[in-house]
């Protein structure tokens, strides 16, 4: 049986029917400058053995560095049971289980995911995941514009200390759909967004305020005051959170007097390896009052004709196969497999296990901060408390320092110069439970050596 179902004769008959001279002619509207004329620059095909050799050589180039970079993706211990469970044939698919009668296991696992995430975020309903944290925020902004009927401005307040990639993705996605963004400055000595900064918008028509907790610098925001201010102005509150941190922090559903309206974030810390940046999964939860404006799949529990409990996709009338152009989003096949990894991870750790991961990460970060700030030429830039990341100011440009550390097998943090040049030389650093006291000490010695050598040079 051929893998390509259309014979040359099929193709020419179809072209003849629609009156097109060739398949190429169907792509005429794409400007020639954007098209690849030939594949002659591509190497010849390799056999399986050659591909394996090439990939192993590339993997060796990565090495196994000691990684202190967080910035939205975090290295946590993943119990072996997570990926061995989800690799089972019954689970191993990213696809949406439309056929309820044949997919009860997958549907139940999604329902359990939704239940755990709704509970973790303090919300009433959670969807069956989105692509990643950044696109989840973009979807949340569009959802807020639909849901906030008191506002007609489509104006969104984005803090400058929100993850820069989240800001870029959100502005790219929603900015072309009539949404306007205002940037909120952060306090230079503390790293958080002051409630006073919002005063400039008092009495104005604001659709939603985005609050990241902890923010990109790892610093805690005063979420209660920010949430209450936004609600007093008739704005909705979109929370961007790290799911691990919620084992210790107040859930967004309890922020301020009324709680956040929409909660999003990246699910990567829950059982997904760093893996060169993806794939991860995004999560989104909200209150029942906004459920019809929420994008993405939802699984519900129901009973069959005989009254037996079962699971099925629900509220599908919001979705594009029914609602067409007016659907709440274009999300269809989601990150189901990664979401399942998150589900198994949460189920294995339980509430207590997740709390220990969060507490240990926070403790290791404090140790790291203590060791590094005792080194001449390094200091903490923000005085405010945070979770498992902090910003370290250096007395010289960060890039050569990081290159030296990298040569010693240490990924020493994210250079913030391109994102926040106003901070001067600065690194964003993270330590999770995977970093031992010995790891932290060896980083401290390496940084001390590198900075001392740089001063002597």
């Amino acid at each position: 049986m051929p893998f390509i179902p259309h014979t040359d004769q099929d193709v020419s008959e179809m072209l003849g029917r629609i009156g097109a001279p060739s398949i190429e002619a169907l792509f005429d509207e794409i400007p020639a400058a954007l098209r690849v004329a030939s594949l002659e620059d591509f190497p010849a095909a390799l056999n399986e053995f050659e591909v394996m050799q090439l990939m192993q050589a590339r993997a060796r180039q990565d090495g196994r560095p000691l990684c202190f970079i967080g910035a939205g993706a975090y290295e946590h211990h993943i119990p072996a049971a997570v990926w061995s469970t989800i690799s089972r044939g019954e689970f191993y698919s990213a696809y949406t289980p439309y056929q309820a009668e044949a997919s009860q296991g997958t549907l139940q696992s999604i329902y359990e995911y939704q239940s755990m995430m709704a509970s973790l975020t303090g919300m009433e309903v959670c969807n069956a995941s989105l692509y990643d944290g950044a696109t989840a925020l973009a979807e949340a902004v569009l959802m807020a514009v639909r849901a906030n009927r008191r506002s007609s401005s489509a104006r969104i307040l984005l803090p400058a200390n929100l993850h820069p990639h989240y800001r870029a993705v959100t502005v790219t996605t929603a900015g072309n759909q009539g949404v306007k963004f205002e940037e909120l400055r952060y306090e230079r000595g503390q790293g958080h967004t002051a409630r006073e900064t919002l005063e400039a918008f008092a009495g104005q028509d604001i659709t939603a305020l985005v609050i990241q907790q902890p923010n990109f610098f790892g610093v805690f925001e005063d979420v209660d005051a920010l949430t209450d201010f936004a609600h007093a102005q008739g704005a909705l509150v979109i929370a961007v959170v790290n799911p691990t941190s919620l084992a210790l922090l107040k859930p967004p559903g309890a922020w301020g007097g009324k709680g956040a309206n929409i909660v999003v974030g990246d699910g990567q810390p829950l059982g997904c390896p760093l893996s060169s940046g993806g794939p991860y999964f995004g999560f989104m939860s909200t209150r029942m009052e906004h459920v019809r404006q929420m994008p993405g799949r939802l699984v519900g529990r129901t009973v069959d004709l005989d009254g037996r409990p079962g699971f099925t996709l629900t509220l599908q009338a919001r979705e594009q196969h029914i609602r067409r152009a007016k659907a709440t989003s274009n999300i269809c096949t989601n990150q189901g497999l990664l979401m399942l990894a998150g589900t198994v991870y949460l189920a294995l750790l339980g509430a207590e296990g997740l709390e220990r991961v969060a507490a240990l990460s926070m403790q290791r970060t404090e140790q790291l901060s203590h060791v590094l700030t005792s080194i001449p030429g390094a200091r903490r830039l923000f005085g405010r408390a945070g979770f498992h990341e902090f910003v370290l100011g250096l007395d010289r440009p960060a890039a050569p320092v990081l290159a030296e550390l990298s040569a010693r097998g240490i990924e020493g943090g994210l250079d913030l110069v391109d994102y926040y040049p106003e901070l001067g030389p600065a690194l964003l650093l993270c330590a999770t439970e995977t970093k031992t006291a010995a790891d932290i000490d060896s980083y401290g010695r390496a940084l001390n050596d590198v900075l001392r050598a740089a001063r002597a040079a």
Partner: protein
Amino acid sequence: MSNIPQDLKFTSSHEWVKQLGDGITEFGISDHAQHALGDLVFVELPDIGRALKVGESCAVVESVKAASDVYAPLSGTVVAVNDQLRHTPELINRDPYGGGWLVRLRPAAPAAAPALMSASEYALHTAQD
């Protein structure tokens, strides 16, 4: 055969229109439409005071199998919506021309009222549907 009251006007998109007096016009969706949609589970209604243009999407009726837009049968300002539908959308299934009404509006310009179908024209329209 669906119920088509003789004293109402209709649109081709299955809204019915009733003159209430005092210059107020009420509309909803027809018996034919509610039957085609099936059991209704949710209704989204416009805000009071909103100015509608004829043909503009102004409400959403959602059933267990579909969600459908409702279009304004004439231009005007929304003066009332049927708040009971927020908790009992099945009123539309039970009584589409009475308790299942959706919106009352004050027409913008009576002279510019669009041509609506009579009951017999609508009966023919649904027969062809």
